[in-house]
């Protein structure tokens, strides 16, 4: 047991606990806050993988933007969320069984995958250089198309979401 491993186990425990709480919490705002904790834990996992850029982006995008958006939406749909009554539908038990089976299947398939046994320590990536990623994203023979497509995706999301969510004043009257 090295220090890294202990740290990893603690982080995973936090992530798992908070994600369980976030899918079971009764009040939606609590659910969102547990979700934030889970996201921070995942950011620590990214930092352990020495993917520092992604650890920071995780905090910036997920905690700083997506979680806040979710909390805003929770507030906007507040009246329906008096949180009385059941938070789960009738399929809870069945789903639990199904999910357990899927998890068991995943574990079995992991066990039976031979190359995995050799992968016990990460490759030595000196210090993940963000610039290499940037160069690859904009080089003509790199990932130019995905890069531009993401911008179109974001544009579509922006326009679509505004179109759906924004109410004109005339409509109100």
């Amino acid at each position, binding site marked *: 047991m090295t220090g*890294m*491993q202990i740290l*990893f186990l603690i982080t*995973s425990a936090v992530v*798992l606990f908070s*994600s*369980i709480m976030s*899918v079971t919490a009764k009040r939606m705002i609590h*659910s969102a806050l547990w979700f934030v904790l*889970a*996201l921070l834990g*995942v950011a620590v996992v*990214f930092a352990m*993988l*020495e*993917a520092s850029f*992604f650890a920071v*982006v*995780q905090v910036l*995008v*997920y905690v700083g*933007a*997506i979680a806040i*958006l*979710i909390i*805003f*939406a*929770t507030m*906007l*749909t507040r*009246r*329906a*969320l008096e949180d009385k009554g*059941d*938070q789960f*539908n009738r*399929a*809870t038990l069945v*789903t*639990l069984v*199904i*999910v357990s089976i*899927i998890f068991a299947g*995943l574990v079995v398939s*992991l066990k039976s995958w031979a190359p*995995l046994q050799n*992968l*016990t320590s*990460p*490759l030595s990536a000196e210090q993940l250089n963000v610039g*290499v*990623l940037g160069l*690859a*994203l904009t080089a003509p023979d790199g990932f130019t198309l995905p890069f531009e497509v993401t911008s179109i*995706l*974001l544009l*579509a*999301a922006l326009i679509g979401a505004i179109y*759906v969510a924004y*109410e004109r004043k005339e409509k109100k009257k």
Partner: protein
Amino acid sequence: MIPLYWYLLLAALIFCIGLFGVITRRNSVGILISIELMLNAANINLLAFWRYLYAETGDLRGQVFVIIIFVVAAAEAAVGLAMIISAYRQKQTVVANEIDTMKG
């Protein structure tokens, strides 16, 4: 050091928790949160595989994929929440089962 399958196990667990939430939650915001958890699990997997298999070769596909997942997650949250707000405005509910106007 940490073996790769620890990361994979963690990702699998988070994915299953998220899946459970997606199927059982009645509140549609809750469903969205669960989906985001599943996307996070996928991200852990991608980065772990990149780190253990490709970090030395300069192969960046894993990272590019993670970036795209970030963008997809953001877009999904934006549009999904906008639709929930819109549905709430018309039906005064966010329970997924009750938003069924699309049903023929």
